[in-house]
């Protein structure tokens, strides 16, 4: 990274969104990004997404899980997993209604790692391989998690929409 203001600001914003997906709280997300940023500063970089995201992830696990094991359910590899291929993580979706606040409430009911994979795949549009590097997971686990989190979120949005109606 050449270190231009625009590039670094972009990195801060992406880091913030990643932290927000983990914490689901804007103030905690900002604290998390600042903590991670100082850690990268002290280490002297590198100022890459992978390194900054890993710093955010590690601090989230340390601070907000207080040393508890991150509950990683054993997942079978995605049935469409093929070595060397990049499975499309977000194939064409059917339309979904979302009231203001509905999506936020539904996301609040997901686990942090589920929100994180949804953000990284849908919003940041990273590949499964890149997400696996950020989260330090096997690629098959990423594929399974994205598939499951999408289904879970869709159901939760429908539930929230139904209960709000």
């Amino acid at each position, binding site marked *: 990274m050449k270190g231009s203001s625009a590039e670094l600001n972009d990195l801060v914003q992406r880091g913030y969104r990643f932290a927000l997906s983990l914490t689901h709280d804007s103030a905690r997300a900002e604290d998390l990004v*600042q903590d991670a940023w100082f850690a990268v500063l002290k280490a002297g970089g590198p100022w890459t997404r992978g390194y900054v995201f890993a710093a955010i992830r590690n601090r989230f696990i340390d601070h907000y899980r207080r040393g508890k094991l991150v509950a990683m359910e054993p997942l079978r590899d995605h049935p469409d997993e093929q070595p060397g291929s990049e499975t499309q993580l977000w194939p064409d979706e059917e339309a979904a209604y979302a009231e203001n606040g509905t999506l936020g409430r539904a996301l609040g009911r997901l686990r942090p790692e589920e929100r994180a994979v949804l953000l990284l795949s849908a919003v940041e549009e990273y590949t499964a391989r890149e997400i696996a590097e950020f989260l330090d997971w096997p690629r098959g686990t990423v594929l399974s998690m994205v598939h499951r989190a999408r289904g879970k979120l869709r159901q939760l949005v429908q539930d929230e929409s139904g209960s709000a109606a």
Partner: protein
Amino acid sequence: MSRGNLKDHLTDYYTAGSIKPQTAKRLTALAQVDINGGAESSPRSPVERWSRVMYAAAACLAIALMGIGYWVFPGGEEQGSLADSQPAGLSDRTAEVVSSRSDALPGLVAVKFHADWCGRSPVVAPIFTELAEKYGNRPVLFVTFDITNETTQQQARYLASSLGIDFVYERPRESGMILLVDRVSKETLATLRETRQQPQMETALALALPRKP
């Protein structure tokens, strides 16, 4: 209702908000100085790293002075006692001021949240004391907010209000933590919840304090 696919809704949701602009600007400036200050690929020594941090502090000070008030502090004189510095009507217990400036209040405030029943409070207390001793002659106010019970919590809020740092209560605060806040920009610059975050708190202090003449 808005119609679109789930991917679009997620994108709208996560891109609607952003980190506070002043925070983004400060973090960007820190990284920029770190990157552009040298391009060596070899591992940096601790001395070299801290030299870069202090260089970054000078750059951040230039940015901070653009929008933040600048306080001039008289130096060299013994500071007022605890009784002189605390607002009237508050108990020593709640308004414990470890060190203070006698004339104008500093822009920087280090706030320790304490509770008698909190197991973490005794852990962060020595760190707070160490920071106060180390930075006691610098323009930063060290204040303890006792949140043991409703009475002390209310007193702490009054103190926060008198110091102009009500914003620290914009979100629920835990005991056994230290915040470094800027009264003028109303930013929280650093948060300490564990002993191993002490270096980061000191970095934040060093970067936020005006450079010694």
